[in-house]
């Protein structure tokens, strides 16, 4: 990746930036001092870019924080002390960060330079999320301003604007994006990089740790009746809320209100019908500009509110129309009816231009030149599900676990349940392994197992990765150890945060990542021993143990039986590195199938299901372009038909 391009280049030149890269550039053009984050799609590239360039860009600090709560606290205190601070997370990250954000939003830093921007990246259609969550209603709860860009250029500009607004109001400002904006790449004209305005002297009195209830209520009054009120005035006068195609005419007396990515979908659909309509484009999404909206509503017989997921804009616009007693028909999702028949746009799933076009057909009774419904044909597709990478250590764990639980059931006759967490290993919930009974959010698995273990005599197994364990699994484990709750915890330590792109966590090998030389790794094994629980460790980092699968199977079997028979909590630390990280350091030892020895039993392609292995007519076949050399198939092949390719 070419990170340098973020900091290089003269003001006025045009770059080809990802929305997320444009956000980084915008922050540097605002004189940012500190960025803290926890990775999560689609927000991760912001932090990764900052990590590469922050020293060169003259920033004081960038960190992968342990979770979103800590990230927002670190950035929040820096903001209180007079820094320009920014924190980044995905939608659900805001849930984790929400507790401190209440207090943070209410406090009012005394330092002139203080400014804070909170990047929240939503993921409509939950392409890479455990739930589909529209974070916008949080804005009402936190009572803070928010901006929403509709393309990468706006990502840069709105980030700068967010810093300006925050600096002026002394309220944190949320920059809200969605996947299709964070991961859109487009022409972006850059501006001047600004140096930090931070001062060495600062006033922290009464800022961070306010014990007085009365004082806090006063601050809350100030937040609502003073700072938010000024935010409203800004929103009314902001060019981020503007009418596009103001003088255009259409025979339907239709005006459109939209924001963010939906704005571009709206244009695409209007173009398709060769239709023009005035559009009130909302970039300053909280607080909404009531006067501006009312003035816009006044001019039309029909208004179409076009937004993705929840009806954040529509419910407020309905209220504004009612308050002004306008006789205008407002089309959208009919939010109070909860009726699938009444809604013109779905409340579930991502929006796109086609959905907007179909809605326009309905609202305006259009006869399109091509029949959209007819184009929308269904084909017999080959379904493909996401799978673990070839050579993924979690596949080896899944394979051993499957064997071990058969043996445990045979010996004890007990039922076995699995609690999944969030990471690549979540894919073990799919065939051929199917290890999942309950799954909530990051860090839940260990507590979920306890809930069932406390109310039944079954064996309950939590499956959690090292990244997630550090993020929020530790309190749940301590809860289980302290209460002496008999569960089996499989801690899948692949050394990295695999799912979001192999970012480091506190246990990662500091030799193998940028900034690692400045860190002190935490030894997970020592840490676990410190809790006094029953800990066993198995290590497959060298990948040279020819009996790895059978040793792991044996260990899981023994500890599972111990949990059942001795009612003891057990943790198995499975240390086996994410293969995507290993192959960046050393070329893999690729395996091949010796057709002479293979009797096509199918164990490797049906039971292990490594995607590098296929079946030809008479024997299994390893695609040498896909094999990453974990060696697990070699161990499990009962005919010793899988061998190492000689290095060339």
């Amino acid at each position, binding site marked *: 990746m*070419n990170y340098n*391009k973020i900091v290089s280049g003269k003001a006025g030149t*045009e770059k*080809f930036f*990802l929305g997320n890269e444009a956000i980084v550039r915008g922050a540097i053009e605002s004189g940012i001092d500190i960025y803290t984050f926890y990775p999560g*799609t*689609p927000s*991760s*590239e912001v932090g990764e870019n900052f990590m590469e360039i922050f020293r060169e860009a003259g920033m004081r600090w960038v960190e992968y924080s342990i979770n979103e709560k800590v990230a927002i606290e670190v950035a929040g205190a820096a903001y209180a002390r007079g820094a320009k601070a920014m924190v980044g997370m995905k939608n659900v990250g805001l849930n984790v960060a929400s507790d401190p954000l209440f207090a943070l939003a209410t406090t009012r830093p005394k330092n002139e330079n203080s400014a804070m921007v909170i990047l929240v990246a939503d993921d409509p259609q939950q*392409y*890479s999320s455990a739930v589909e969550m529209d974070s916008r209603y949080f804005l009402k709860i936190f009572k803070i301003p928010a901006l929403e860009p509709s*393309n990468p250029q706006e990502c840069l500009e709105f980030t700068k604007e967010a810093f300006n607004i925050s600096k002026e109001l002394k309220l944190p400002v949320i920059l809200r994006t969605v996947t*299709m*904006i964070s*991961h*859109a*790449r*487009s*022409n972006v004209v850059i501006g001047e990089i600004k140096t930090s305005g931070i001062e060495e002297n600062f006033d922290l009195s009464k800022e961070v740790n306010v014990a007085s209830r009365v004082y806090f209520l006063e601050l809350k009054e100030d937040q609502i009746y003073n700072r938010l009120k000024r935010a409203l005035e800004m929103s009314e006068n902001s060019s981020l809320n503007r009418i596009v195609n103001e003088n255009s005419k259409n025979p339907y007396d239709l005006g459109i209100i939209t924001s963010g*990515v939906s704005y*571009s*979908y709206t*244009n*695409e*659909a209007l173009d*398709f019908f060769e239709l023009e309509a005035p559009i009130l484009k909302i970039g300053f999404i909280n607080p909404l500009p009531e006067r501006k909206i009312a003035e816009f509503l006044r001019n039309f017989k029909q208004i179409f509110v076009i937004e993705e997921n929840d009806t954040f804009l529509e419910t407020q616009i309905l209220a504004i129309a009612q308050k002004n007693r306008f006789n205008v028909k407002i089309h959208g999702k009919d939010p109070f009816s909860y009726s699938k028949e009444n809604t013109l746009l779905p409340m579930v799933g991502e929006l*796109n*231009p*086609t959905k907007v*076009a179909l809605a326009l057909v309905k609202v305006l009774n259009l006869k399109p030149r*091509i029949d*959209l419904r*007819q*184009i*929308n*044909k269904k*084909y*017999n*597709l*080959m*379904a*493909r*599900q*996401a*799978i*673990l*990478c070839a050579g993924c250590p979690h596949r080896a764990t899944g394979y051993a676990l499957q064997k071990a639980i058969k043996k445990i059931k045979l010996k004890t006759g007990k039922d076995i349940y699995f609690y999944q967490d969030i990471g*690549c290993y979540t*894919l073990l919930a799919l065939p051929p392994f199917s290890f999942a009974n309950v799954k909530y959010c990051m860090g839940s698995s260990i507590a979920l197992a306890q809930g069932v273990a406390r109310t039944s005599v079954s064996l309950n197994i939590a499956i959690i990765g090292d990244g997630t364990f550090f993020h929020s699994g530790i309190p749940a484990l301590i809860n289980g150890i302290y209460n002496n709750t008999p569960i089996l915890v499989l801690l899948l330590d692949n050394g990295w945060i695999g*799912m*979001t*792109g192999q970012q480091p966590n506190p246990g990662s090998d500091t030799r193998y990542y940028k900034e690692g030389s400045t860190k002190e790794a935490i030894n997970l094994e020592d840490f676990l021993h410190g809790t006094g629980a029953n800990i066993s460790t198995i290590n497959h980092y060298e990948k040279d143990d020819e009996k790895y699968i059978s040793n792991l199977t044996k260990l899981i079997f023994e500890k599972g039986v111990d949990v059942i028979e001795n009612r003891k909590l057990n943790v198995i630390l499975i240390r086996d590195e994410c293969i995507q990280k290993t192959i960046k350091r050393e070329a893999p030892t690729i395996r091949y199938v010796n057709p002479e020895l293979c009797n096509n039993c199918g164990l490797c*392609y*049906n039971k292990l*299901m490594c*995607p590098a292995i*296929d*079946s030809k007519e008479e024997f299994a076949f390893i695609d040498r*372009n896909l094999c990453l050399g974990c060696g697990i198939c070699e161990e499990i092949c009962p005919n010793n038909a899988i061998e190492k390719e000689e290095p060339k």
Partner: protein
Amino acid sequence: MKVDSYRIVLTGLGGQGLVSLLQILGNALKIEGYKVMTSETHGLSQRGGKVTCFLSFGNKLLAPIPMIGTADMIIALEESTILDVLNFAKPDKSTNLIISTYEKHEIEKDYPSLEYLLDALYEISENIYFIPAHEVAVKSLGNLKTMNIVILGYILKFLPIKRDVIETAIKENFLGKRFEMNLKALSEGQKLISKNF
């Protein structure tokens, strides 16, 4: 050749280099003076499953997702995945369908038959190009991963991009040895243009 608006849909499997292809193509078009909008896929959706990306360019900024029925070109890096995005083709059958003949089968799943595929394609377009990009990538270059750039070389035939511009764009994506290899892949792809598929 100056283009007002042009929409491309790209599809394939995670790990096939769709995003690199998208970045290089988009960057080159940007250098050629267009407003470009692409949407990349990151994260879980890339773990081996199907991936769809979009690229639109022209004299104004378009949306990161196009309408169905409006694509000028559809590229599939894996043959069967073209079926997922045929709805983007124009009803007048003018859309260029660029299909790499690489097939990735999965155990215990029926791969769409060639007959079914051809029927579907001929109903949709009169401009279908099957490109044996994987064979070229493996035979001439010894690396399946360069398949995406072989395809890139081929589609230059339809796009307003000069050779030196595309080289600059490739250089910004790949350094050193990988640059050399991908430049070769590009040339192999361009050689295919003179052949008929």
